[in-house]
């Protein structure tokens, strides 16, 4: 990824970039001790309409990330007070789930693999082409954070998408595969309505036979399982629209 001074590589955000970012103007944390790079990134991202906070130290980054709900973080690997990899691991350990784009001059495959497995979501290598970083930022901002989380909490229930189990106050719910898939989908979209069609597309493949009331039946079974487990979460029905998972007390299933 090297800089090529073609018109397409102009450092000025193109109209297409601006339009792409316009629907998701975000607050972004840049963790970069190289003042020139930080200034360049800040200028470009602000040009896309984002709000940008810049810090130079890992410790400052951790404080900022805990105090603010960033939509994205750009982290340099080599920071004056520590390794960017350790910073990313610590952020993930503290359940800071914002996408992280890690910048580094370390270009080897093993370095890139370590970066990504430490919790970074993308790993562009320096020197970077400004238009490419803009595009990567826009792509990462398109990912809803909840789509990436592996553990989702709703009231007293934790849905562990890696272990494929839901736990209510320490007790695992023995959910069949389809019911867990349904719960995971609703949990990832918690508090948001999930259309019935989306559920159908998630639970059933092209060759599966789907009855007219298959989704209603799965919802009913899942509701019963949640109720019997004492889960503080409930599934709300909006007729003709879909379902949503919410903290119990506000549900109005009908």
């Amino acid at each position, binding site marked *: 990824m*090297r*800089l090529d001074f073609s018109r397409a590589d*102009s450092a000025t955000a193109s109209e297409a970039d601006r339009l792409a970012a316009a629907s998701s103007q975000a607050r972004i944390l840049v963790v970069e001790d190289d003042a*020139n790079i930080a200034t360049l990134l800040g200028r470009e991202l602000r040009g896309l309409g984002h709000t940008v906070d810049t810090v130079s130290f890992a410790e400052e980054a951790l404080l900022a990330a805990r105090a603010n709900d960033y939509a994205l973080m750009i982290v340099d690997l080599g920071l004056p007070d520590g390794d960017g990899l350790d910073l990313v691991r610590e952020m993930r350990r503290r359940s800071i789930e914002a996408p992280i784009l890690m910048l580094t001059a370390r270009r080897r495959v093993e370095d890139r693999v370590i970066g990504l497995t430490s919790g970074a979501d993308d790993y562009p290598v*320096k*020197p970077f082409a400004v238009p490419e970083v803009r595009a990567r930022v826009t792509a990462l901002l398109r990912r809803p954070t909840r789509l990436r989380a592996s553990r989702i909490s709703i009231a007293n229930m934790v849905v562990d998408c890696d272990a494929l189990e839901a736990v209510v106050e320490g007790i695992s719910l023995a959910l069949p595969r389809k019911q867990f898939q349904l719960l995971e989908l609703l949990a990832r979209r918690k508090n948001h309505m999930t259309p019935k069609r989306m559920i159908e597309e998630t639970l059933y493949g092209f060759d599966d036979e789907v009855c007219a009331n298959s989704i209603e039946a799965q919802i009913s079974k899942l509701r019963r399982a949640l109720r019997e487990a004492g889960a503080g979460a409930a599934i709300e029905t909006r007729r003709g629209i879909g379902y949503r998972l919410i903290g119990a007390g506000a549900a109005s299933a009908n």
Partner: protein
Amino acid sequence: MRRRPAPTKDDLALLDPDGAFRDRLLADRAAILPLADAGRIDELAPLVHRLAGAAGTFGYAGIGDAAIELDEALRDGRSGTAPLLAALRQALEAL
């Protein structure tokens, strides 16, 4: 090593509008060359690493390429870095 043309004034106006990066490059050059002459590789290495990350981003591809080659050789602890150091010197002196 493949070389790219030096950036034009228009390119630099976009990437480095106030010339801050060029000022820094000049300062880096003033720091790097004496360290290279004195063979003080331990002090040289972090400066070269920083240059490897930044120079190409701001359009100084020749300096960036040379710094990357040298940075990787130093990281590996390779011997025979003199030609790489000479290439970086040449690129910096052409600034």
